[in-house]
């Protein structure tokens, strides 16, 4: 067993580049999905029924597709429609689009739970449109939804493991190739698990600091 971990150690370069790719992929996807989710949330809350209905259909539809299947569609399915992405772009697009739906839905929920009066005060004090959203509505939303957004970011990290099936050289892919090359499945996969765990701890730390900001304002 010790020997198996020794084998994994000898392949640490591969593992670390997988870890780096997972981190980059997740970070880009998290930032982009949150930004797009923020842009989509006002549509979900729109008073115009058509806009809100269309946005909600999109979000609900997306949330009901298994991520693995969605990644398949982007990478293998779209080329038959003439849209061809390489594995990096496909993986990133899949993660972003899929999680945008979740982020928007998280923000919508938090928005509905916000007290009405401070937003009304914003309107009464001369805020409207984008400025009202950006200055008055969004900041308390992000503070109160912080832990749930953090949770979704952890989900993004774990979802990125699926992208091994489109040969994206991320952490699971690296662990997988080490185990098939040397036949050390337990050591390779358990090492990957601990590395994922480390990434999640970073997110947890970030959520913790947002939580402290929110606590001072609650």
């Amino acid at each position: 067993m010790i020997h198996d971990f020794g084998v994994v150690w000898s392949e640490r370069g591969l593992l670390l580049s997988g870890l780096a790719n997972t981190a980059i992929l997740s970070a880009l996807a998290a930032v982009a999905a949150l930004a797009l989710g923020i842009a989509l949330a006002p549509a979900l809350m729109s008073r115009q029924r058509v806009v809100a209905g269309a946005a909600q259909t999109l979000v609900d539809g997306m949330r009901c597709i298994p991520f693995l299947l969605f990644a398949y569609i982007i990478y293998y399915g779209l080329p038959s429609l003439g849209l061809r992405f390489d594995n990096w772009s496909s993986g990133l697009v899949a993660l972003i689009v899929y999680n945008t739906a979740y982020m928007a839905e998280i923000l919508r929920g938090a928005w509905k739970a916000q007290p009405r009066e401070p937003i009304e005060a914003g309107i009464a004090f001369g805020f409207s449109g984008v400025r009202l959203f950006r200055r008055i509505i969004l900041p308390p939303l992000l503070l109160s939804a912080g832990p749930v957004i953090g949770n979704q970011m952890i989900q993004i990290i774990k979802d990125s493991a699926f992208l091994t099936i489109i040969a994206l050289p991320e952490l699971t892919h690296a662990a997988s190739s080490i185990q098939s090359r040397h036949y050390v499945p337990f050591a390779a996969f358990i090492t990957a698990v601990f590395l994922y765990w480390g990434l999640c701890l970073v997110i947890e730390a970030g959520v913790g600091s947002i939580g402290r900001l929110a606590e001072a304002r609650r």
Partner: protein
Amino acid sequence: MKQNSKVLDVAGISKKFGAVEVLCDVSFQVDKGETVCVLGPSGSGKSTLLRCINWLERPDAGQIYLNGKQIGVTAGGTVMTDRDLSAVRTRIGMVFQHFALWPHLTVLQNVTEAPIQAQKRPKAEVRDEALALLAKVGLIDKRDAFPARLSGGQKQRVGIARALALRPDLLLFDEPTSALDPELVGEVLVVMRDLAREGMTMVVVTHEMGFARDAATRVMFLDRGRVVESASPEQFFTQPETERARQFIQRYAGSAANGKT
């Protein structure tokens, strides 16, 4: 010249929520420096009237003029865009029953936010004025605290400073002391009395009979969406014209005595 002293002119405002008629043909004017207290039983339409003035509620009929310019409707007769409406709203300060402070901003930021972001005034000037306003309401030492750390009375004084920071032509108070513990009401009323004395133009929806009696220049009694009486406080409280007003005053006689500070 008399025209110029009229800050607010409400002309025939009506408002329905579904089939319920909340306001019916309400008209009144407020001159510069006046403190008009709007009294009336719950559900008489007081808050809705206040919210119609700055178009938080859109009136079904009637016009509202601030310093001679119509609110909510353009010269061409069309409904104003949100942007134009926002510009008009920055001329009117509003104080809310449940404070409605912005939870993510400090006390000082709450006061400076609208002048800087909505009125686009220079930051340094706004900040100096905001600090002076916080000193005026006695909260200068709380400037870096978040609203969640304040008592109700302190929150409402921040609410008043926030409204004053707009340099408004008109201040609207929507039951500013109704959500406060009784022992905290006084500190808010003191600030409001000072403003009335300094000649701020104010419309105050309140149940504080003591305040209405000695700080108002005029009292307006609303019942079922109609202005039933409009008189000086002396006249209203000693010789009300209608039976409805007489009953109302009697019911609040106790709280009027308590409300004196």
